[in-house]
């Protein structure tokens, strides 16, 4: 920030502004990244982090403002130009071809015509020297998410960037893998490279970042040294107010409660060459409790959710039981009619139709369960009734929006997620299965959603939460099971669970735990 640092700044951003229609996603952003520092870009979802980074990487064009690179003003018109300057980017969602090898994927992005064997050799050497061992000949489809991230990082490093932008890199890693990544980042810093580290995980920002720029609603609200801040003070800067802590009332009488959701010996063959088979999964969720399922992304959580929800049905009707009755042969509508509710991971395009209004999206999951209320004679939709119900949910969940009944795509991730969760809670379901309840949701909304899930359980429902966010699972679960390579570990009561233990299970260690003893204690 101070003027005397200017000569050492690798990247300076001055007054960068980007508007989409009436929304100002980035409003006169100033940002300096010095040579050889790890600079955190903190902010809630919708704060403008992605928009800012996309402008730096040339995929979006700013409306005004300037970008100064090594003391020279530049207009970054496309990613190729950014790469030539020396800006590399590792995206949150990988862009790899699963049917190609790691080396082939790297070669595709290098675009310099050198033979694959040379690239493979370089990649291997580089990966080992940075402690990110990678076999360039392995098929991407066979690799874990952590390994795929390595390919992205190596691919980025091969272009010898001076600035590396990492977008939420630890969101797909086990705690142990994250530690490894931090070592690599520190190593890169010691070589004089700069890193722009985007995250909302405050603990890790405090741990590895030298400076932080905090964004809120498209504006810079502060620059700070994260090491001198507390997680609470950083959160306050990000959110603007104090974030309410989630309260988990002790579960009572769970031992004697009826299991409302039972999974018995659920197996599923992989649907595509690159999807994960489910192997003999057993689980019971009783009335009144929240069970969390941890696991690194891509270990079968999506397949598991589809099987439990009934989007994919089972041969064996008894493999999924809801409220004591077999449900494996029923469709998702049939399972909803038995009292179950589901919230999928993807909000846009799965949990909600992006181009449809919120009231129509209410109808999406409730046209059958509330058929009498929402659908009249001859299949006519009662638009007044769905509108009123949508407004009730919007109020109950504090969904912020610009018009009374906007399209789903017009809402921020957090607000849409509040609506989608609220849509199901409004039914008072006796079984609730949620995949990634707060993925990409801002802290305030996340706390709200977590609290409502706990309250639903305490009011006598069975709640199953699949999440990659360990903090979240520790906050809300009464027991945590771990999914690894299509197998589910025995649930660990929250009192016995530690990050260490869960992390090891996530990495596939202790196969003994993967034995499915049904009887607990």
């Amino acid at each position, binding site marked *: 920030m101070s003027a005397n640092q200017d000569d050492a700044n690798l990247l300076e951003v001055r007054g960068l502004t980007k508007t989409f229609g009436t929304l100002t996603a980035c409003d006169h952003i100033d940002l300096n990244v010095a040579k050889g520092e790890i600079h955190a870009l903190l902010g809630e979802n919708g704060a403008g982090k992605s928009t800012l980074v996309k402008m730096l990487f040339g995929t979006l064009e700013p409306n005004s403002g300037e970008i100064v690179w090594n003391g020279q003003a530049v207009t970054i018109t496309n990613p190729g130009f950014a790469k030539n300057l020396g800006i590399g980017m590792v995206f949150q969602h990988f862009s790899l071809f699963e049917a190609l090898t790691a080396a082939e994927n790297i070669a595709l992005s290098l675009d310099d015509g050198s033979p694959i064997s040379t690239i493979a050799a370089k990649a291997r050497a580089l990966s080992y020297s940075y402690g990110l061992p990678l076999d360039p000949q392995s098929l991407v489809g066979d690799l874990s998410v952590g390994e795929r991230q390595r390919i992205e990082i190596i691919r980025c490093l091969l272009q010898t960037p001076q600035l590396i932008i990492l977008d939420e890199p630890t969101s797909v890693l086990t705690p142990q893998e994250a530690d490894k990544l931090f070592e690599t980042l520190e190593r890169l810093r010691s070589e004089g490279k700069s890193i722009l580290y985007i995250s909302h995980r405050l603990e890790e920002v405090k741990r590895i970042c030298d400076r932080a720029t905090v964004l809120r609603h498209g504006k810079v609200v502060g620059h700070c040294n994260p090491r001198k801040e507390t997680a609470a003070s950083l959160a306050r800067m990000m959110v603007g107010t104090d974030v309410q802590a989630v309260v988990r009332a002790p579960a009572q009488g769970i031992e004697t409660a009826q299991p409302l959701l039972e999974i018995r010996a659920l197996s599923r063959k992989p649907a595509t060459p690159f999807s994960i088979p489910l192997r003999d999964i057993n689980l019971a969720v009783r009335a009144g409790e929240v069970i969390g399922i941890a696991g690194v992304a891509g270990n079968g959580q999506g397949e598991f959710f589809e099987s439990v929800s009934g989007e994919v049905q089972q041969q064996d009707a008894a493999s999924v039981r809801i409220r004591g009755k077999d449900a494996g042969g029923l469709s*998702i509508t049939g399972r909803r009619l038995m009292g179950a509710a589901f919230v999928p991971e993807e909000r846009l395009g799965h949990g909600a*139709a992006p181009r449809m209004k919120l009231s129509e999206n209410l109808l999406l999951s409730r046209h059958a369960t509330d058929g009498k209320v929402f659908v009249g004679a001859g299949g006519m939709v009662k638009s007044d009734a769905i509108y009123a119900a949508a407004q009730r949910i919007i109020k109950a969940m504090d969904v912020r929006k610009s018009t009374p009944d906007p399209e789903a795509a017009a809402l921020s991730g957090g607000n849409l997620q509040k609506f989608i969760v609220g849509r199901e809670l409004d039914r008072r379901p006796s079984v609730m299965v949620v995949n990634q309840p707060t993925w990409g949701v801002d802290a305030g909304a996340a706390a709200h959603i977590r609290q409502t899930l706990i309250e639903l359980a305490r009011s006598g429902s069975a709640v199953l939460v699949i999440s990659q966010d360990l903090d979240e699972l520790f906050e809300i679960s009464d027991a945590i099971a771990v999914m690894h390579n299509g197998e589910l570990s025995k649930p660990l009561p929250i009192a016995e669970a530690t990050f260490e233990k869960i992390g090891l299970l996530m990495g596939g260690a202790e196969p003994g735990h993967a034995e499915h003893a049904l009887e607990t204690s």
Partner: protein
Amino acid sequence: MMRLELVKRPQRSMLFSALSPFIAFVLTMIAGAILFALLGVNPLKAFQIYFIEPVSQVWQLHELAIKAAPLILIGVGLSVCYRANIWNIGAEGQFILGGIVGSSIPVLFPQFEGPLVLPLMLLFGMIGGAAYAAIPALLKTRFNTNEILTSLMLVYVAQLFLDWLVRGPWRDPKGFNFPQTIQFNDSAILPELMPASGRANWGFVFALVAAVLVWILMSRMLKGFEVRVLGSSPRAGRFAGFGINRMVFFAFMLSGALAGLAGISEVSGAIGQLQPVISPGYGFAAIIVAFLGRLNPLGIVAAGLVLALTYLGGEAVQSALGISDKVARVFQGMLLFFVLGCDTLIHYRIRLIGFAAPKLESAPKLEEAR
């Protein structure tokens, strides 16, 4: 070296979305003027003959309604398919099968007369069209074949089947070997609406009723909601518990039934018997109608009238100026081209990319209007 790139616009303009069909129409006019000029005809005079004269008298409006009826009926059905993201290109074949199956009653039972004949024929026509449309639906759901190809290929099967029927088993034995069936008896003829002023028949009423009903279906009913969800986000549709396979059958058979109804209405109303060719490409022109009408049943009524005019205008310029009536096809093709082009440019803008060295520092661009 330069290349073109389509860049997605962050927001589409509501104004231009609404204007798009009109802009496309104007562009078609301009291109048409150039076309006429190249043919050595004064464009203004040609337009006068093409677009004004065919609708300057009441009986001509009846002719317009006759041409518009099948276009609207088929277009309305196709709009349901396309909204569901199901690509039925074979309405021409479904139209023909509707005509054949509906005609089976007066052809095979010429003695059967009375008020029941016509409703039965119309019903048979719809069943024939729906059943024929069920074939690509079955192939798609069972074998995952591409419905664009199968439905299109079935058009040629239908055309040849009709050709064989009227030359073979269904040929009028007293017809001097002309390839046609017997003339339908009077109770098998679709009545005219206002015989005093022209020959428009009840087919046009069917078209208007179908447009209103489908509009209600799509905008007010759960089934229409299902169509829109599955068409725009299939995964969300699966989450809602809507079956994609059921939808494929529903959309194909609904549009097939409407195409079949159009077919039998055309045969029993405008023609009065089966001939080797019963459609001047209505099934294909209706694809243009559906898109020109923005897949909205009420817009399709207007678009159907416009397309009908291109048919009448084609005939008019042929007789008045000696230009081939294929010019109608050219107009229809240009219209579809410009509609799709306008729609694309509403969603994307074109960027010219040169292989220039990276630019250094350019002043921030002035914000474009809004």
